[in-house]
C-alpha cells in the first residue's frame, strides 16, 4: 500500500471545507433535533391527548425508516409535487426528523426516571406544573439523559455521511468525488477516516467528561 503524500497536501483544502460543512450541518441538525425531542418528550410525559398520538406516529415513522430514503424522498420526490428544497436544507430536515425521534426517546425515559416522590414533593411545596418542569424534572432528567444524549450526538454526526447520497459536499461525498477524478483511493479514504476521527474523538472525550460532571442526580437521595 503506497501513499502519495504530496497529493494529500494538495487536496487538503477540499477536506477542510468538507469538514466544516459536515460540522455545520450536524450542529444545526442536532440543535433542531434537541428542540423537537424536548417538545415531543414533554407532550408524551404529560400525555397531552391528541398531540401525544401524533407524536407517537412521528416517532414510529422516523425510527423505522432509513435516513437515506427519507432524504431521497425529500430531495428527489418532493420537487415532483411542487416542493423544491436545496440539498443542505433537505439534509438538515432529514437529520432533525430522524434525530428528533431519538432525542425524544432519551429525554422521555430521563423524565420517567425522575422519582415519583420528587414530583409529589414538588407539588406539596406548591409548585405549578411549569415550575415543576423547570426546577425539578428537567434538571434531573437531563443528568439521567446524558449518556443517551451523547450516543445520539455521535450517531447523528456519523449519519451526516449519508448526505453524500443527495449531492451535499460533506466529507464522504467529497472523498467519492475526488476518487472519481484522481483515482487516488488509498489517500482519499485515509483522509476521510482521519477527518471523522478529528471530529469524533474529541467529541467522544468531551461527552464522557460531561457524563461524569452532571451525574448529581444519581447519588444523593
Amino acid at each position, binding site marked *: 500500500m503506497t501513499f502519495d503524500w504530496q497529493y494529500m497536501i494538495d487536496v487538503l483544502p477540499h477536506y477542510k471545507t468538507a469538514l466544516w460543512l459536515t460540522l455545520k450541518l450536524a450542529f444545526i441538525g442536532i440543535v433542531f433535533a434537541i428542540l423537537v425531542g424536548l417538545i415531543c418528550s414533554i407532550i408524551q410525559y404529560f400525555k397531552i391527548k391528541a398531540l401525544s398520538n401524533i407524536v407517537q406516529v412521528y416517532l414510529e415513522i422516523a425510527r423505522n*425508516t432509513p435516513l437515506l430514503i427519507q432524504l431521497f424522498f425529500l430531495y428527489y420526490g418532493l420537487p415532483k409535487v411542487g416542493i423544491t428544497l436545496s440539498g443542505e436544507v433537505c439534509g438538515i430536515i432529514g437529520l432533525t426528523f430522524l434525530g428528533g425521534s431519538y432525542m425524544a426517546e432519551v429525554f422521555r425515559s430521563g423524565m420517567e426516571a425522575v422519582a415519583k416522590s420528587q414530583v409529589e414533593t414538588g407539588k406539596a411545596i406548591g409548585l405549578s406544573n411549569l415550575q415543576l418542569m423547570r426546577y425539578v424534572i428537567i434538571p434531573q432528567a437531563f443528568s439521567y439523559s446524558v449518556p443517551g444524549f451523547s450516543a445520539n450526538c455521535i450517531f447523528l454526526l456519523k449519519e451526516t455521511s449519508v448526505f453524500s447520497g443527495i449531492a451535499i459536499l460533506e466529507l464522504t461525498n467529497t*472523498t467519492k468525488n475526488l*476518487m472519481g477524478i484522481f483515482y487516488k483511493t488509498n489517500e482519499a479514504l485515509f483522509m476521510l477516516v482521519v477527518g471523522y476521527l478529528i471530529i469524533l474523538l474529541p467529541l467522544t472525550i468531551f461527552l464522557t467528561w460531561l457524563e461524569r460532571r452532571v451525574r448529581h442526580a444519581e447519588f444523593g437521595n
Partner: protein
Amino acid sequence: MLNSGISILFEGINLQRLLLGLLVTLRVASIAVVISIVVGIIIGVIRTSKNKLVQLPFRIYLELFRIIPILVWLFVIYYIVPANFDINLSSEVVALIVFSLWGTAEMSDIVRGAIISLPKHQVESSKALGLSPVQMYRYVLIPQATKRSIPPMINLITRMIKTTALLTMIGVIEVIKVGQQIIEVNNLEYPSASFWIYGIIFLMYFCICFPLSRFSRKLERKWAT
C-alpha cells in the same frame, strides 16, 4: 400535482422488480445477522474476561465500528481491497463483510453487557452450590442473560436492516437501485415517479422495521424486572 403518478407502481413488472430488490436487501441483512449473532455471542463471552490483553483488541475493534460511519467502512473495503490486494470482491460480498463485522462487534457488546450486568451473587451462589463453570453458564447465566440481550439484539437487527439502504451507494442492485432504474426509465412518462417510488420504498422499510421494534419493546416490557 399528477395524480396518475401512483400507477407507475403497477406498470409492467415494476412492483415485482422492487420486491425482488427488497429480497436482495433482506438476503444481505439476514446472512449478516446470523453471522453476527453466532460470532457475536462467542466474542461477547470472551470479552467478559478480566484479562486486559484480551479486552483491549476487541475494544478497539468495537470502537472502530462505533466511531467510523458504516458508509465509510463500505467505501474503504469496496475500494481499498481490490486496489491493493488484487482481490475482486462483488459489492454484495463487501456489504456482507462490513455488515457482519459491524453486527458482530455490536452483538458482542450486547452479550457482554448482559452477562456482566447479572448480579455478582448469582455467580457466587452457583459456585457455592458446586456447579462447574459450564454448568453455571448453562443453567444460571445464559438463561438470564438471554432475556436481557434479546430486546437490544432485535433493535440491532432493525438498525442493520435500516442501514442496508446504504448498499445502493456501492452499487448493490437492491431495492433502492431498482427504484432508481425504474425512475430513470419512466421519467418522461411519469414525471412524478420519484415521489411514488421513494414513497413506496419508504413504506417497505417501515413495514419491516416497525413490527420488529414493536416486538422488542413488548419483550422488554414483559421481561422487565
